[in-house]
């Protein structure tokens, strides 16, 4: 990928006018075709431009607030290889994201203020804003609380031991009680280790057929139920990340009905893909299955379909899509998890869990929109303003606001080409597939960070 297409923080503020573009701003429900102007990095009145700005034909394009990803893995600090902060940020910019939140399961983990500052320093000049989520426990070992207030002072926007739950209920309770005072949410990777141990895909007919050990729904549900009980007692904010089960969604729906401060996100792959992909299917969750076929050697047991939590059953994926539509699921977060090929080109049991997602998130969302199961306005909200609010950012396309936006063609098709991705990694089962949605322009904080 040509690096010249990427800008970075520190570039001069941009100015341009887009004529007749579909502007979507979920803040006030705007969905209208009109002109949109950016002057010196701020949204401006198109009637009051200087006349010297670049004019862009907005026909067929959508402008939306810049996307915010609550869950990415950037592999720095670490032994390197699969991704860097810089390459991950370029992938983000290309996907329309202006903020990404780096998870702390690096080597070493981000469990102290100096490491938070190190990442933020290293991310200066990257092609999007990089926020940091700190570890809840020292060394992500699940034994002792890390210095959460000090890390918050250093810039941590939330806390998580992502990659695992905090297995000890008492420690989780202590973390929530303390975080209420710190004013940051606990981001929970809900997985009961004793139920999930040894499992590599969702339990069910496909796992039984493939001879792969199945991860039961209860592995996620028991942790979510436990955490909701702890939130009810502590009053702290809980954010459940990469929700993957209908049962977990129901639990969160009930908690929110009680007024508890529980939010959640879902990944694009838990919405659009299903456990049948492990058996070689390449049909989206909303497409009717073709019926039982023998595993295709070209696609079955593909290590790129190994993710944690595992890909959902079709029924659960559709339930999650419903949850996204009705707003119980606040956000789409990618869980962008880069891995080198040698950790994926192995027997399925041995594959490292995770797939990349920054450059395909919008496309999978738009594929769902095309089925009529999701409104574009809601998709945009789940990619932009709702996740931004959860970490205390705001986004707006109102006149006078800093320009933080993405412009994309929702109908255009592109083919996912491993060699053309901005990410250093290419571990995605979507490689070779044609998807809707091409990002034309990303502007973060008034600067162009990606231009097609």
């Amino acid at each position, binding site marked *: 990928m040509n690096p010249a297409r990427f800008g970075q923080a520190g570039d001069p503020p941009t100015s341009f006018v887009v004529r007749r573009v579909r502007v979507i701003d979920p803040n006030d429900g705007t969905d209208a075709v009109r002109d949109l102007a950016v002057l010196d990095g701020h949204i401006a009145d198109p009637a009051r431009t200087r006349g010297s700005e670049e004019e862009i034909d907005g026909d067929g394009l959508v402008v939306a607030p810049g996307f915010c990803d609550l869950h990415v893995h950037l592999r720095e600090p670490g032994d390197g290889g699969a991704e860097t902060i810089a390459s991950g940020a370029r992938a983000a910019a290309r996907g329309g994201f202006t903020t990404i939140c780096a998870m702390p399961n690096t080597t070493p983990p981000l469990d102290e203020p100096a490491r938070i500052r190190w990442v933020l320093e290293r991310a200066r000049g990257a092609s999007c804003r990089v926020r940091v989520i700190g570890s809840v426990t020292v060394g992500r070992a699940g034994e002792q609380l890390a210095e959460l207030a000090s890390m918050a002072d250093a810039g941590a926007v939330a806390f998580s031991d992502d990659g695992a739950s905090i297995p000890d209920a008492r420690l989780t309770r202590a973390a929530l009680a303390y975080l209420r005072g710190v004013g940051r949410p606990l981001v929970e990777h809900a997985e009961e280790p004793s139920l999930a141990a040894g499992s590599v895909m969702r339990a069910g007919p496909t796992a039984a057929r493939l*001879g792969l050990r199945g991860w039961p729904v209860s592995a996620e549900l028991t942790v979510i139920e436990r955490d909701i009980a702890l939130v009810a007692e502590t009053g702290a904010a809980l954010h459940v990340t990469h929700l993957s089960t209908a049962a977990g969604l129901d639990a969160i729906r009930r908690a929110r009905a009680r007024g508890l401060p529980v939010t959640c996100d879902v990944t694009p792959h838990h919405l659009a893909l299903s456990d049948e992909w492990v058996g070689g299917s390449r049909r989206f969750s909303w497409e009717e299955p073709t019926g039982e076929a*023998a595993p295709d050697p070209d696609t*079955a047991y593909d290590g790129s379909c190994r993710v944690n939590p595992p890909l959902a059953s079709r029924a659960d994926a559709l339930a999650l899509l419903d949850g996204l539509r009705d707003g119980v699921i606040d956000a789409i977060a990618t869980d962008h998890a880069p891995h080198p090929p040698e950790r994926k080109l192995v*027997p399925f049991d041995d594959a490292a869990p995770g797939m990349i997602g920054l450059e395909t998130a919008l496309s999978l969302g738009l594929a769902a929109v095309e089925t009529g199961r999701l409104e574009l306005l809601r998709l945009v909200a789940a990619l932009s303003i709702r996740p931004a609010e959860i970490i205390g950012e705001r986004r707006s396309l109102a006149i006078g606001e800093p320009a933080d936006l993405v412009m994309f063609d929702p109908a255009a098709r592109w083919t996912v080409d491993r060699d053309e991705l901005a990410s250093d990694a290419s571990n995605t089962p979507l490689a070779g597939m044609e998807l809707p949605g091409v990002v034309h322009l990303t502007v973060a904080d008034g600067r162009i960070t990606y231009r097609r």
Partner: protein
Amino acid sequence: MIADAPRQAPARRHLLDTEGLARAELERLLDLAVEMRAARDTRTHRSLLERETLGLAFYEASTRTRVSFELAGRALGATVVDLSVAGSSAGKGESLVDTLRTLERTGVSVLVLRHAGSGAAHLAARTTGMHVVNAGDGLHGHPTQALLDALTLREQLDGLEGRVIAIVGDVAHSRVARSNIHALLALGATVRLGGPRPWIAGFDGRTGIEIAGTIEDALDGVDAVMTLRVQLERSAGAGIPSLGEYTRSWRLDEERMRHAAPDAPVLHPGPTNEGIEITAELANGPRSLIGRQVENGVPVRMAVLAAVTGAA
């Protein structure tokens, strides 16, 4: 609407599992095995695979399967190389794919792979150009075992259409059972699964499969019984309280076999744990087809090797 004209099933480059094989393909492989059994005696096919090099890559211990593949390859004139895992680079941290690609470069044209990972044979087929024959992948499949079981049953029962075959034991963790289920269903049989509930979980609701909660129900009126080897080293973690309880509830013996059809035969993929999943009396008695299963191993594997290479 014009019905599809009957056509020859497409030749397959690999045998990864019995799943997806149509009845005609299965019958053809079994017919070919019968032909191979005769040819082995008359030595009429001993140059059929003389251009092929068979690589035996067994990442798990095996005696009968490995030896029968070796004999099958030699009976057809193939060069046979045995990658014994101890002492090879496979034991030195080299990845499976790297090892297999090296084998391919050294001239192996047909890979016979046994590996602890489900889907390992699919991975080999996807990443190399060799013909791949699955000799057992994790918990997933063991198609040549299923074929030799099907051949044994077809000959004993005079066909499988409409027959009811019980499979008793840890079906959920058995690659033999999984491949047998596909083959038996495709050949027109009904399959009845019996065992402690966690051992038969995940198969409910499939057409042609019945689930039995007791040994009596599992055996009631069946035409044949296949029992599986209890993985002694795994029983503690396999969801049952004890081996003794399994034996009391599920061991096959002459007494319990009275629930089955008269003279219903008994199969076992071997090696047996006599006294645990089957009594010595039954395993060595007149109902037992265990010896015939072993005898059918070489001709079935000859047929598979000839079929995947397009030699027959």
